[in-house]
């Protein structure tokens, strides 16, 4: 027996390698962004798909990203407090409906406020079901989506489509609210034109950068600016304030929070209400940007928002990145369709080739081989065609999400007590 004890003479098992946690510091982030920009402008130069970095493309990407980002941010609030929110879609519907209803009567700013309230109302229902009654979060969310759909459709017929009503005279119908006035946009004078000019020259990198910046300063909706503020504000509120610490603790360990005098119910309610409000604002953004509420307007963006939240590792920066990526793909497929997405094939090939190298260095030959073969296939495909099917373009945002999740999901970390039922005073 003692022979087995020899191991005791060796040193104790190695402790975890120090510094194993790789932290993304600001220099790193900037470096990554710069690298991405260089890559994209190289891609633009090689493929000649100028829309890849045009100001219009980035402007469109921004407005496509906003509703998704708001939904994702809404999801983040709820889930950081431990409540899964698959009802985001329904909350968005309520938001866009409320915005349409108030908007045609009182203008776009009131519409935004109404959207927030409408979404918060959905959040309230979800909070009552999950926090007070302890219903399974996903089940409650699905039920809320069904209810919100029914309620908005019903109210639309009553409030917009009633024969001879003021709303109908103003252009409303069963499926659509009467139009509301434009919400003003803002353009940085001078700068926008200057950037636009530079972009027109198609200089490597410089023009691309100008395009990106131009998109951010030309004809931007004030709601977009507000959204950026909400992302930054969320970060500071949730990660730099005691309110946020308490809220997050409800999602990590509600019993400990309770034992330290935190009113967990109150924070969960607050989080889910804010969650609904943000999703509602996302819905309102949709209504305001096309001037009216429309049946089916949200088009699954609530679900996509949920995906970006997971994609973004439950962090505001990640959500913004995810929504931005989604918005970019969406804007690209909408604006220029096949040819530009076609150029992305080359970009994807380059990425895969890079991945293959990294895997090879990590001595994961099989994975490296798969990545390399995939890259080669993409290059061949790129060379042999000059566009990609519209269907592939349409599916590209979903494929991209799936791909990213499949590659990186192991590194994601959800709040620990997420989805778990919590009852006051029921701890050990």
């Amino acid at each position, binding site marked *: 027996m003692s022979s087995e004890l020899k191991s005791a003479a060796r040193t104790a098992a190695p402790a975890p390698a120090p510094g194993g946690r790789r932290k993304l510091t600001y220099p790193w982030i900037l470096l990554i962004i710069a690298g991405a920009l260089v890559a994209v402008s190289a891609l633009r130069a090689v493929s000649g798909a100028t829309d890849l970095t045009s100001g219009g493309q980035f402007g469109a990407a921004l407005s496509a990203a906003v509703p998704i980002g708001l939904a994702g941010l809404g999801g983040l609030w709820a889930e950081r407090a431990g409540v899964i929110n698959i009802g985001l879609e329904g909350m968005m519907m309520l938001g866009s409906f409320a915005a349409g209803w108030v908007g045609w009567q009182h203008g776009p700013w009131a519409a935004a406020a109404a959207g927030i309230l409408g979404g918060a109302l959905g959040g309230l229902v979800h909070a009552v079901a999950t926090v007070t009654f302890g219903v399974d979060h996903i089940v409650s969310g699905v039920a809320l989506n069904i209810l919100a759909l029914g309620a908005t459709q019903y109210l639309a017929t009553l409030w917009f489509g009633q024969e001879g009503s003021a709303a109908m005279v103003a*252009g409303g119908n069963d499926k659509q609210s009467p*139009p509301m006035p434009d919400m003003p946009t803002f353009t940085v004078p001078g700068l926008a034109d200057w950037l636009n000019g530079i972009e027109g020259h198609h200089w490597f990198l410089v023009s691309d950068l100008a395009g990106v910046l131009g998109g951010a300063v030309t004809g931007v909706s004030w709601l977009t600016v507000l959204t950026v503020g909400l992302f930054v504000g969320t970060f500071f509120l949730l990660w730099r304030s005691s309110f946020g610490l308490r809220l997050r603790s409800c999602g990590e360990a509600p019993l400990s929070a309770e034992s330290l005098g935190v009113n967990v119910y109150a924070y969960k309610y607050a989080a889910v209400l804010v969650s609904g409000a943000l999703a509602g604002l996302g819905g309102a953004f949709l209504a305001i940007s096309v001037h009216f509420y429309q049946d089916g307007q949200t088009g699954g963006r609530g679900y996509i928002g949920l995906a970006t939240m997971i994609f973004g590792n439950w962090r505001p920066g990640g959500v913004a990145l995810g929504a931005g990526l989604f918005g970019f793909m969406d804007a690209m497929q*909408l604006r220029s369709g096949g040819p530009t997405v076609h150029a992305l094939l080359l970009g994807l090939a380059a990425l895969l080739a890079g991945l293959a190298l990294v895997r090879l260095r990590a001595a994961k030959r099989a994975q490296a081989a798969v990545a390399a073969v995939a890259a080669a296939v993409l290059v061949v495909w790129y060379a042999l065609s000059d566009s990609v099917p519209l269907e592939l373009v349409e599916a590209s945002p979903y494929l991209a999400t799936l791909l990213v999740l499949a590659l990186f999901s192991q590194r994601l970390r959800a709040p620990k007590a997420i989805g778990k039922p919590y009852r006051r005073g029921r701890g050990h």
Partner: protein
Amino acid sequence: LGLTATACGQSFAEANRATHAGVGLAFDIGGRDDHSFNEAAARGTENARKQLGVKVKMLTAKNGETEADREQRLTSFAEAGYNPVIGVGFAYSQSVQNVAKDFPDTTFGVVDAVPTGKNVDAMVFAEHEGSYLAGVAAALKSKTHKVGFIGGVNNALIQKFQAGFEQGVRDTDPKAKVVSQYLYPNNDKGFNDPAAAKAKAQGMLDSGIDIIYSAAGQSGAGSIEAVSKVKGAWAIGVDSDQYRQPGLARYKDHILTSVVKNVDVAVFDLIKSCEQHKPLTGVHTYDLKHGGVSLATSGGFITDVQPQIDAARKKIIEGQVKVKETPKS
């Protein structure tokens, strides 16, 4: 429930025999005020109500409904004694064919489809011919010699618009470039997504296109809005005269013209024929020759090119020009 559903029991129609309730109009999901062909059909019944004194009942489809739902809607009309019963949109093709069999004494109409049946009036339109004229106007008015076409959904119907438009442009200005794109390959959402159309149009405008023809139902409003923000650019409307639509009033100075599909005329014809007890049946093609499609002149923006447009119309009517229904690959 399940038990009583077998063989026995009275059906609703047997219990409720009704006749002559008026005209039944079943809309596709766009709904009555889609600023497009549903609206035009509604206008036709409105005219019939005023001129012929018939009563009208309208029902609208739900999103994501099935054949069974459509059949039920038509059946309900027929059971309740509505005659004629009109389905607006090609989605009703199969259901009209099926339900018409069960109600041989009722006349059924369908817009944009050609189902068969002794008591069925199929109303189809030569959208490609109207679109050809739009192409002519666009080619003549474009300063950049780049024009765009936005289709809502890539289906056979919308391809007719595309084909006619492209041919019209090419025949008029061989140097001009036409960019044709669709919002969705295969999703009715395409007729209902102005935000997407706006982004698409924006993309086209950014690439130097200055005239955009959108055949995308309600989505078209988005592309018209995008066009209205660019000086010198024109939008071409579809289905109804969009210059005159209240919802689009603030963009009307950018609406060059519209390819009008006179669904109202067709619907009115059918109702009138039923009132006169000589119901129309079979396929009726409303083409350029018969005034089924036309190019709107509201706003007077195409007055300067009207002679060329008239010449093109004449060629089509006389058969010198054959407009294709499917785009060149």
